[in-house]
């Protein structure tokens, strides 16, 4: 067999990364300079920041669900762990700088993720999905029932004790935006590194056919737990950012089942096993209610009678859009983006 090992590969090792790379850099530059300059406070703190954070959470779940094929309906629980860990670390270990705290919070969430991932070694599919609800409800309860976690605040809410890096205060909308975007960019890079590595390949192998994966020597159990860990790491940091980079004040119920469902929607609507698709999904989740609200201000809906009817109508429309998207875009919004890029490219080609 040694003969097989020696000869050089017949093809270049790396696929041309040019396209992705340039796009990433340009997006990065826009994100860093243009966005804060153009967007006002409201846009920044009520639309862009939540979209980015939810997109990050989407990546977290996508690593688990899209790449490893393990369903979780309890993602918000790991976000809450990240948020409460960050709060307590900032509070109780004041000497730790914010970035370190975020990493620790992610790691704590990762540990919880690994523990709650243990059932995945035995069970699959919806059984697994439904059992992740255990994490969802357990942590929501834990953080409401033991007030130690919220430093005995009466409403059990936690608020950002200090948000600063090297004396630079990040409390303002722009400051929080930079915190969120910098963290997210780093984590996107990490996500890409993971899915392009052997780890990512083995995850996908497990997703597609776990028996075969195990038969060819992939350490299925470890890989699944690693996936839970890494996924929760992302979710944990997203949770911390959600609590402090976005809301400023938060409680355990901010990470309830609805949030978990939202993250699921982000993954499915954005596109399974994609990274950037999550941001499209997140934009959908964040923007749709706002747009519906705006729309209701423009269109005269008084025939409906009252605002309650309007709220219900928004519910109906939101649900309908979700169903329509699922029907019309089986591969998620990211395929829409891909089609767009392809169309542009072919037009560019034909005009040449």
């Amino acid at each position, binding site marked *: 067999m040694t003969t097989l090992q020696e000869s050089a590969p017949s093809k270049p090792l790396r696929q041309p990364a040019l396209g992705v790379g340039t796009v990433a850099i340009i997006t990065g530059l826009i994100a860093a300079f243009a966005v804060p300059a153009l967007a006002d406070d409201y846009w920044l703190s*009520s639309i862009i920041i939540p979209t980015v954070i939810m997109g990050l959470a989407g990546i977290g779940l996508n690593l688990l669900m899209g790449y490893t094929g393990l369903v979780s309906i309890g993602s918000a629980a790991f976000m809450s762990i990240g948020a409460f860990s960050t709060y307590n670390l900032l509070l109780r270990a004041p000497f730790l700088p914010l970035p370190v705290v975020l990493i620790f919070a992610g790691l704590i969430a990762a540990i919880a993720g690994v523990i709650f991932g243990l059932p995945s070694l035995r069970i699959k599919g919806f059984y697994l999905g439904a059992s992740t609800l255990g994490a969802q409800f357990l942590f929501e*309860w834990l953080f409401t029932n033991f007030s130690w976690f919220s430093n005995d*605040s009466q*409403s059990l809410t936690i608020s950002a004790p200090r948000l600063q890096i090297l004396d630079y205060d990040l409390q303002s909308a722009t400051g929080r935006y930079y915190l969120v975007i910098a963290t997210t960019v780093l984590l996107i890079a990490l996500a890409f590194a993971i899915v392009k590595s052997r780890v990512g390949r083995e995850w996908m192998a497990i997703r597609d056919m776990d028996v075969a994966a195990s038969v060819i020597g992939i350490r299925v159990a470890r890989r699944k737990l690693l996936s839970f860990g890494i996924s929760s790491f992302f979710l944990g940091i997203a949770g911390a950012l959600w609590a402090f980079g976005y809301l400023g004040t*938060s409680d355990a*119920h901010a990470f309830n089942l609805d949030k978990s469902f939202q993250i699921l929607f982000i993954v499915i609507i954005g596109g399974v096993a994609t990274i950037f698709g999550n941001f499209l999904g997140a934009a959908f989740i964040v923007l749709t209610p706002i747009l519906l609200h705006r729309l209701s201000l423009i269109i005269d809906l008084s025939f409906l009678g009252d605002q309650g009817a309007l709220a219900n109508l928004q519910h109906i429309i939101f649900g309908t859009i979700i169903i329509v998207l699922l029907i019309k875009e089986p591969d998620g919004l990211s395929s829409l983006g891909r089609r767009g890029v392809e169309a542009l490219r072919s037009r560019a080609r034909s005009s040449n």
Partner: protein
Amino acid sequence: EDGTGQQLYPLFTYRTGPYAPSFIPFGAGNIDYLRYINEVEGGVDGVKILVQECETAYTIERGIECYERYKNGYNGALTAAIYPHSSGLDVALTDKARIDKIPIVSPGGGQNIATDGRVFPYQYPLVFDYWSEAQIIVDYIAQQAGGYDKLKGLKIATLYHDSGYGRDTIEPLGILAKKYGFEDIQIPVPHPGEQQQTQWQQIRRANADWVFLRGWGVMTPVAIKTAARVGFPADRIIGDIWSGSEDDARPAGAVAKGYLAVSVFPPGTDYGILKTLKANILDKGKSDLKDNSKFGTVYYNYGVIEAITFVEALRTGHKKFGNRPLTAAEGQWALEHLDIDQKRIAELGAEGLISPLKTSIDNHKGETIAAKIIQWNGQSWDTRTDWIKADASLFADVIKAKAAAYAKEKGIEPRVATN
């Protein structure tokens, strides 16, 4: 639309979700009163009020979003105060409000410790608070038992909604239990409270003499029904002010007969202001109510009372700052100098609906806190007692001390009460 020259009233709603049935009538009370002010009285001293709704679904997270959305006004309309309609949200906004300098007003709710306006310049638990409620309950039970000394050895169980709102009575009841020697049993019910079998079994097992039901939404009817199933008599359950509406008792059916509740927002349509509203809003088809039978119910009247506090605060502010929309800072001053006395109440046509309300830097709640006990007769509420006043001195020291501790923790320099 352009809001310049108008006063913003950000209406935090929960028109969907499990608590919608409570909100809908009190939202309507609010809106109807403000419509009346705008359309019939031409605004508050000529300043129109712009109502903007924001759906919180009674969650803190969405509530914070709403707060962020409206704290700086809307299209030129100024924000003078925010009514979060949730004690949990009220607490959650404490820090933000201090930084943004926005008054947070929770008539009938909020945090008792914020009564101390020197430490909490932006928190207004107007009209009523849950510590006083605890006091009033104990008072009533003592009355029934034949005196405070008879409280000794009694068992009072509190079944509370597991939220910021529900937990607020744990501390005062602990203090009262120590003081009077009754046994204090605290039992939480997880949101939304559609299953309470085990909780009630615990209550029965403990042989509780009274149950103080701090419910909210679906929790109340389920509690009354479950009580009946385990054989706990309805006339030994005293509901919280938010467990004391028609929609709390009626769905429980026949077994609710005899159920008691604390009342601060008396139901009924026989008040001057309600008649005015009926003539000018309801009968003209301008009411926010879809179901007119809700007119004059506990929650509707609560909404009206709440709106009155807002409008009266604006009036107070106008006297000092002129007849124009108030900023948050001006709103804060106004809320701190409210004085709705008997005379003003009569002018408002709210006699019997509200009791006098006078605030100061020292007291953000108002000076006299009182409630009645009402009882469900199977169809509607009967009033059982006259106003029972809460003895403000009882907790004054505790509150002061707590506020001081809070101030210390947050590094707040308490203001000095100079008028």
